[in-house]
């Protein structure tokens, strides 16, 4: 297969397994490109991309921007905090105004789940979801799987546990979809209050004991507590959370195998993961960041080639 089955990247839910493989194969080529002394290719010189962020972001925004620039696209950056959104403009109006400046693709992060899907139905541009509320964050899941594939050779058949605030995490949901699609075994682990009620319907295992989860897995993806989305108290104290669900060196060393540690960032050092674990050789956290640029280049390249 040489092209994506979709026109937008709204979520992993809408992708086929072959799409993921195509994105990975393309990312392999871009990874070689970004390790050259001149890291830029001219493919997208006639494409303009708007990065619209209605929510804060460091890594994702930088990563998208760098990916776009490495492909020679023209880039517009827009942050809601400094815009007319504050003056009462609707999402469609904002985006249509940007599109009348002849923009071909929109990369959007928004606090509301489904914002990307809504937009794709109303505006004529290719939409890339860079995170919509607690719904999906497809490029993060793609780069996570890509990093597992790079480290362990394959994703199929691997045991992956996602630890932490599953309820509020778009990274968790996208990762579950992506990993299941590629044939991995997935478990989630966290306090019961932070696990979604219908998590079983996604075909994943549930474990509330961190040690058992780590003993089972090949890869542990550690998530942060999404404090900005916690409207009520889901656990007594951060200290108690750390005691039950935080990974430290002692716990890792007591396992009878060496597991891979991942984290999508931003890390709350000393809460879900201690510094010595985050910086250990078992951790592939910085590889994830590097792969993020290659994956986003692949996604943008493949979507842009469908713009006529």
């Amino acid at each position, binding site marked *: 297969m040489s092209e994506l089955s979709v026109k937008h990247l709204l979520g992993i839910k809408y992708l086929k397994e072959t799409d993921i493989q195509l994105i990975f194969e393309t990312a392999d*080529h871009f990874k*070689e490109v970004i390790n050259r002394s001149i890291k830029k*290719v*001219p*493919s997208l010189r006639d494409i303009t991309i708007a990065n619209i962020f209605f929510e804060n972001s460091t890594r994702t925004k930088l990563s998208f921007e760098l990916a776009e620039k490495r492909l020679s696209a023209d880039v517009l950056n827009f942050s809601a905090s400094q815009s007319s959104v504050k003056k009462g403009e609707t999402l469609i109006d904002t985006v249509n105004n940007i599109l009348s400046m002849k923009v071909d693709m929109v990369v959007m992060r928004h606090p509301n789940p489904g914002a990307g899907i809504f937009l794709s139905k109303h505006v004529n541009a290719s939409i890339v979801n860079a995170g919509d509320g607690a719904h999906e964050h497809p490029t993060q899941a793609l780069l996570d799987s890509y990093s597992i594939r790079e480290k362990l050779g394959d994703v199929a058949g691997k045991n992956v546990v996602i630890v932490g605030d599953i309820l509020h995490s778009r990274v968790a949901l996208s990762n579950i979809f992506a990993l299941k699609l590629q044939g991995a075994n997935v478990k989630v682990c966290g306090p019961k209050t932070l696990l979604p009620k219908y998590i079983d319907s996604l075909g994943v295992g549930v474990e509330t004991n961190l040690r058992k989860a780590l003993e089972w897995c090949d890869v542990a993806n550690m998530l942060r507590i999404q404090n900005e989305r916690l409207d009520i108290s889901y656990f007594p104290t951060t200290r108690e959370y750390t005691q039950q669900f935080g990974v430290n060196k002692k716990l890792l060393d007591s396992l009878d195998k060496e597991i891979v540690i991942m984290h999508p960032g931003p890390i709350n050092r000393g809460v879900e993961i201690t510094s010595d674990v985050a910086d250990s050789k078992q951790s592939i956290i910085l590889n994830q960041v590097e792969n993020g640029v290659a994956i986003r280049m692949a996604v943008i390249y493949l979507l842009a*080639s469908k713009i006529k």
Partner: protein
Amino acid sequence: MSEKVLLSSKEINIILHRLACQLLETHLNFENTVLIGIQPRGKFLAQRLTKILQEEYNVKHIDVGFLDITFYRDDFRRGDKTLEATKTKIDFLVEDKNVVLIDDVLYTGRSINAALTALQSFGRPKDVELLCLIDRRFSRHLPIQPNYRGRQVDAINDEKVKVMWEENDGEDIIYLVNR
């Protein structure tokens, strides 16, 4: 669709030996020369020439690389299909080297143009030459000519030159295909 044999395995072999000798004449021991095959089809030609130079003309070491030009092509989004990339493998610097770009068929010259742009990502070569097995003359869109050519062919627009390699397609043979 009809196929006509343009060159047989024996003829290809003779041409490959001549091209190897011509390279040898200019580059002697290949100390400061690198061969770069343009992916996907120039790779086989580059490998074949290297093999002849090493095994039959005792050249000790030749740097050979493969260059994918997909992301440098000028027809992105102009066709129906997504352009699919292949692997680039250049494990050396081309800075101050004599580079010989190698491709099987030279047609419009656009691939070579893209290859010249792509090559810049790997440094500033001393000079760049072009070797092609088949030169379809009178069909260039750009001012690009080969330094070494296997055979010159007059092929009209709806004809296609198909180069087959033993290691990939089972036998060495070149067809002129009428579409």
